[in-house]
């Protein structure tokens, strides 16, 4: 299979030109219709939102709307809630997802494959189902409180955290952990078991094998899963909406309540721009930290 024709792919259009004077449209022309459609239905609307956030009703351009919104206490609360819930959820998903994926990969049990399929199905369902389910498990009418009142005879159960930020955190960790597990399982299946056997026969114990052999191998997958979960958590809306707590507002929730409940479109546009900027900033920051960590791990391994 080392023939030169096979090794070097033909440039686009070469064959057609060779067979006759057929006109071949240049490649970039074919890319125009889909990019144009995307521009019409997404990029242009995005620009309109930025423009509306900069132009108050009186006309002209100013940052007045930003100054006004950034001073509001609900906005600051929402910003803080968004950041800490997303960061805590990402950390929780990484820890939980790693533990579960390691057991599936290295301590195999019958039915493990079926579980991986189950996780794929899990990813196809919307996030708000988790909050709906948690209402039946930890809600005021629900399994956990029901067990407690049956056992102790008390009027109310002790589980009241569901309508607090902790309820949102639990739901997000539950829903987003599979997003970490899937790339991680794929990476773990690539790890050379011979290396593990050698390390183990040389006397290394499980924690050391995990740290020195498995971790460097799966760090890119862990990083990819983590960055996806971070962005998804920052942008999550369904879980927060279904939690329906007065005290838990995040930036996407604030966009919704400003635009739909208050009809304040310039304010909603300001929060939307801040929300997009926050997602992009945290994502970039995370990738930079990860690149440094990966570089450090490679240096330590060398």
């Amino acid at each position, binding site marked *: 299979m080392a023939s030169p024709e096979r090794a070097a792919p*033909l440039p*686009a259009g070469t*064959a*057609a030109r060779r*067979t006759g004077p057929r006109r071949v449209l240049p*490649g*970039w022309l*074919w*890319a125009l219709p*889909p*990019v144009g*459609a*995307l521009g019409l239905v*997404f990029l242009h*609307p995005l620009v*309109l*939102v930025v423009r509306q956030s900069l132009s108050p009703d009186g006309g002209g351009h100013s940052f007045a709307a930003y100054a006004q919104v950034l001073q509001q206490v609900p906005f600051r609360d929402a910003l803080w809630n968004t950041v800490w819930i997303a960061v805590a959820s990402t950390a929780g998903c990484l820890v939980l997802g790693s*533990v*579960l994926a390691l*057991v*599936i990969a290295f*301590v195999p*049990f019958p039915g493990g494959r079926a*579980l991986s399929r*189950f996780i794929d*199905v899990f990813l*196809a*369902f*919307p996030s*708000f*189902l988790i909050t*709906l*389910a*948690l209402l*039946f*498990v930890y809600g005021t*009418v629900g*399994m956990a409180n029901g*067990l407690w009142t*049956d056992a102790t005879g008390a009027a109310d159960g002790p589980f009241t955290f569901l309508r607090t930020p902790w309820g949102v955190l639990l739901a997000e*960790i*539950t829903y987003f952990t*599979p997003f970490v597990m899937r790339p991680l399982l794929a990476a773990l299946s690539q790890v050379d078991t011979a290396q593990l056997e050698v390390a*183990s026969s040389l006397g290394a114990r*499980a924690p050391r*094998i*995990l740290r020195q052999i498995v971790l460097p191998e799966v760090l890119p997958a862990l990083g990819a899963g983590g960055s996806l979960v971070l962005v998804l958590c*920052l*942008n999550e809306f369904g879980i927060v*909406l279904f939690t329906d707590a007065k005290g838990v507002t995040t930036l996407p929730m604030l*966009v*919704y309540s400003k*635009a*739909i409940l208050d009809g304040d479109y310039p304010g*909603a546009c300001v929060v939307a721009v801040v*929300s*997009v900027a926050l*997602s*992009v900033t945290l*994502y970039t920051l995370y990738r930079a930290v990860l690149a440094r960590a990966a570089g450090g791990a490679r240096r330590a391994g060398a």
Partner: protein
Amino acid sequence: MLVHSRAGRWTAWTVFFVLFLPLFALPFLVVLAASFATHWSGALPSVPTLAHYREALHGDSLHALTTSLLTATGASVSALVLGGWAALAAERLPRRLRRVVDALFMLPLAVPSVVVGLCLLVAFSQPPFLLNGTAWIVVLAHTVLVTAFAHQSVGAALTRLDPAYEQSAASLGARPLYVLWRIRLPLLLPSLTAAAGLCFALSMGELSATVMLYPPGWVPLPVRIYSATSRGSLFEGAALAVVMMAATLAVLLGVSRIRNRAAHR
């Protein structure tokens, strides 16, 4: 095998199931159990009934189901055309331009869905594109949101495609369009159907952008579930959720059967 002792293995499995069952298996079971119940004040639900399902398959709820199915079909077909076309066209571009196109099509993933909804609301509430208040704006929003997934999976499949087939076809004189239609698309069929299934499932459960812009006559199932639970009808919401999951699973199953047949050809 990382854990050699029998005790160690059992410890690992116990930890796994103590974490896995309550977190991932319980939610589905609980929603399913609640959809057949009218009360849940003890450890288990009580007073079994089928009334919620009767309600979920009649009147407005049935209309919401068909609305969701139609929206998801429309959105996944148009996302597949738009994202697939972009992935196929981007392959022919110079490397730098290709990365720009790929990044543009991934951008809707980085933007919160609520903001996508707001964008469409701002852009299509004024002439010349007055779509606000019609069903089209919902389909359009879902298309924008799921196109990234279609683009990504078709793009990934394209890099795995063996160029030998199309090169031999082209060297035999086949025009590019003929090569696309007879060689590349049939080879891509398995990943195209996988992408279609994913897009359909995501669109069926889409809530964030939908609550921003659904018109009164076009209420998809997730919005209906939200309005049921927010007015306190949790059990009715659970039945609607089960109907939604069942419909999604049925379509996914059908799509994967098509995929298997395409892969065996």
